[in-house]
């Protein structure tokens, strides 16, 4: 397995170079924001424009050595596959699904006995085609769902590959190749009917594969949406580099408009002041009264109340507060993750949902969300 498949993710060279500068938030050459992998503490890498980390996501798919490459009509072809995690820094890869499709038939999911593949490890999967009842060139498509996980977060991707192989004709009505030799020693001619030749066929180059054949993996963005692995049901996707715009927050209580530049990729909301220390928030949530004084309800907001972050093309919210909160009127407890859709209303105070709300609005260009407006409204 020495053949190295090319990496799927490729951040631009200039961005990768700029990421070497400590505390750099933007690329010095192209000006694009440097978006770090959610596991940057381990992989120290920026992701590419499609949201993939070149260090964490390194799956390799092989057709194992010794696999037959041709089959006769009416037969089945066994495809022994090897899935390998080639990540070099100990990041595990999770294989969450494998589907196979033959020609124009539908996708057939194969049950997998494993999910986690540690760095450098490989797993074997046996795929068998259905009965191939037509001669000619056939194609088997493979669809692989993978995920990278870090604490509670997950980035899921779907990749495809295909194998093309010829199916030879059985041809029962065709001419039979016979060999006729005569010999008076045995007193008769000797006829051999349509045998399977061994050495002549081998000499013609129809050998089995002595080494595993690497299969090229391509990103299947449509399948990611279709299978619900990335993005929203309506096709919208929130990229990691999405820009956040802050409305209704007091000056100094929210960061400047723009993408999340912190390597964690998370925005924290809560009662604590905005700051860079461990307990500091990205946006401060206070309940103020009409006269500008702080409402007693502020005490019900935790120091860190909730966090929002883009994950697998969606905007997610995680409840950090022990008091819980409401999203679109539904209450959620601590450590629960909630999908935030366009127009979602976050009510940090579970018992007084109208006192303080943060509304989420998307601005999209075609299917990509380019800006997310976070509007704070206080009615205490």
């Amino acid at each position: 397995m020495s053949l190295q498949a090319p990496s799927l993710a490729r951040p631009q060279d200039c961005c990768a170079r700029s990421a070497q500068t400590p505390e750099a938030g933007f690329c010095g050459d192209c000006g694009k924001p440097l978006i770090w992998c959610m596991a940057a503490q381990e992989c120290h890498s920026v992701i590419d424009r499609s949201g993939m980390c070149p260090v964490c996501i390194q799956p390799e798919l092989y057709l194992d050595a010794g696999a037959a490459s041709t089959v006769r009509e009416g037969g089945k072809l066994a495809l022994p596959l090897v899935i390998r995690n080639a990540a070099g820094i100990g990041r595990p890869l999770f294989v969450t699904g494998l589907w196979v499709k033959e020609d124009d038939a539908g996708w057939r999911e194969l049950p997998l006995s494993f999910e986690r593949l540690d760095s450098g490890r490989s797993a074997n999967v046996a795929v068998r085609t259905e009965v191939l009842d037509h001669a000619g060139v056939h194609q088997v498509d493979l669809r692989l769902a993978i995920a990278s996980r870090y604490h509670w977060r997950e980035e899921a991707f779907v990749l495809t590959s295909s194998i093309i192989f010829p199916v030879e004709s059985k041809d029962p009505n065709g001419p039979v190749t016979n060999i006729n030799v005569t010999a008076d020693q045995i007193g008769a001619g000797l006829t051999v009917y349509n045998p399977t030749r061994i050495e002549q066929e081998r000499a013609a180059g129809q050998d089995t594969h002595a080494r595993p054949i690497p299969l090229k993996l391509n990103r299947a963005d449509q399948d990611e949406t279709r299978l619900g692995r990335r993005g929203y049901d309506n096709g919208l996707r929130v990229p990691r580099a999405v820009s956040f715009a802050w409305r209704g927050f007091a000056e100094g209580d929210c960061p400047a408009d723009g993408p999340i530049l912190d390597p964690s990729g998370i925005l924290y909301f809560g009662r604590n002041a905005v700051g860079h220390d461990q307990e500091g928030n990205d946006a401060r949530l206070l309940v103020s009264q009409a006269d500008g004084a702080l409402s007693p309800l502020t005490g019900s907001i935790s120091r860190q109340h909730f966090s929002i972050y883009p994950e697998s093309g969606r905007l997610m919210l995680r409840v950090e507060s022990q008091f819980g909160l409401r999203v679109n009127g539904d209450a959620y407890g601590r450590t629960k993750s909630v999908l935030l859709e366009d127009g979602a209303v976050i009510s940090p105070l579970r018992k007084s949902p109208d006192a303080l709300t943060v509304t989420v609005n998307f601005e999209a260009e075609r299917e990509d969300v380019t800006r997310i407006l976070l509007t704070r409204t206080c009615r205490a």
Partner: protein
Amino acid sequence: MASEPIVLSDPRMLAEFMRQSEFKAFFEKRFAVPPDYAALLFKNGELVDAFKGGHFSVGGLVDRMKSLIGGSTHISMMIADLKPFQLQTVLRATSRDKVEVTGVVTLEVQVNTDKPSNILGMMHGVDRAPGDANDLGRKALAKADVLDRIRPHFSDRVFEAAIGRVDAADIRGDTGLQDKLQADMMKEVERVVGDLGLIIRSTSIEWAQNAEEAAEQARADAERRQKEVEFQIEMAKRQAELINDATEFEIRSRTELAKLQNASEDELKHMALNSEIEFIDARENAKRRQELEELDHQVAFLEKERKATFENQLATARNETELMRIQQEQLKIDTDMSALRETHMQEMKKSGAFSELEVSALAQKQQREHISELQEIELRGERVRAEIKRLDRQQELDGQKEILIHKKGMSAEQILALDAGLSPDVAMVLAERARAEASSNEQSMALMREMVEAAQAREIRTEDQARTMSDIAMRGAVGVAAGAGGKPLPEAAATGQPQAEIQTIDCPKCSTAAPATSKFCMKCGHKLRT
């Protein structure tokens, strides 16, 4: 017409030439070679083709007539079994500690289905003269023949070489050794018969028990038996103690003790009958006493354990605050332990299994121990406190000494920066810049004061930070203009000196210094050049 199957004459055979007599017939005969056999067809001694199975039609008068016209040709056929087969042999070697080691080697071999004709190499050629006793060509190859060919290559080259490096006791379960032996054996088979139409699929070795292992097993058996006997003795002893404890009796009497002690058995019986003495069964008390004694032991053990933990904490205490905290915790635990002991004493008294005297003696003993422990702890705490103070003082002295060493040979500018609390490295950088920019000592000191104030305000700690700060301060707007145009600095251009440091420009939006070659600010993303 039904076909006759052609198979090997014996299952121990691997390959065989077909007898000519089987093909001779007046009428046509049909034969079938199963698909798990290779059929090799020879014409006039030359290999025509090889087939995986086949269907042959032989004989008949018409074909015979045709052969008379067409001329005579010699035809023969060989069949070879293509299925994998197993070979086993026993090998012996001597280990590093001179113990004979025996292993059963199992080989999985198969005729190479891609090149079955190469098996002829094992058969010493094709049989060209049937019936000739002088012909050395063989008509068949047995599976045992294959083993005979391979076996001599294993004994010294593979087996002795590997076993001689390990001790007999370490061989079993050593997968590394197994892997090495398997790999070596497969390599040998490949080398010997690889191009003779055989392929090796796998090998493995099963170890027979060697003398060292047998001795080890005997030792382990003996130890097990010894332990069993010891356990039985222990159980018997406990049983005896229990019986002893449980048969303790208390005699209560109003008679004189001396009289009782001197009384014979008959006299005691008589006294008992007359109710002068009475026996009280003390079994319950004895049992209760045992339980409480065990509990007392547990309490003492808990206390010892806690003491050890506390000593460990004391030894690792780093400062006064930590020491206080540990002592407070200790006090709390002490109080808990005292309460526990008190409860236990009450229990002992209540149980009636101990006399008043025993309980009070025990209490006094524990109190003595407790007080001495507390005194010891206090003393230890004092010692640790004194040690911490001494270390603090030492650190302070070391710091002062270091500053004095640095100050020696320093310029007035550096000492100024050092006194202001900046590090020696930063002081050196700032002093260099001040001297370089100023024309007199007064100017240099004035500039140095400004820079020290700025460095304090910006919390400059490292040499690099100091250099960056002084660069920005010295070049100011000149740097921005020069950097924006991508041109070298005027002084550098005039002198023709190469620029040693990277040119930076300040972002007009966030004032962050960025390399002059950057098109965008790396802090806020603001566009720096068009």
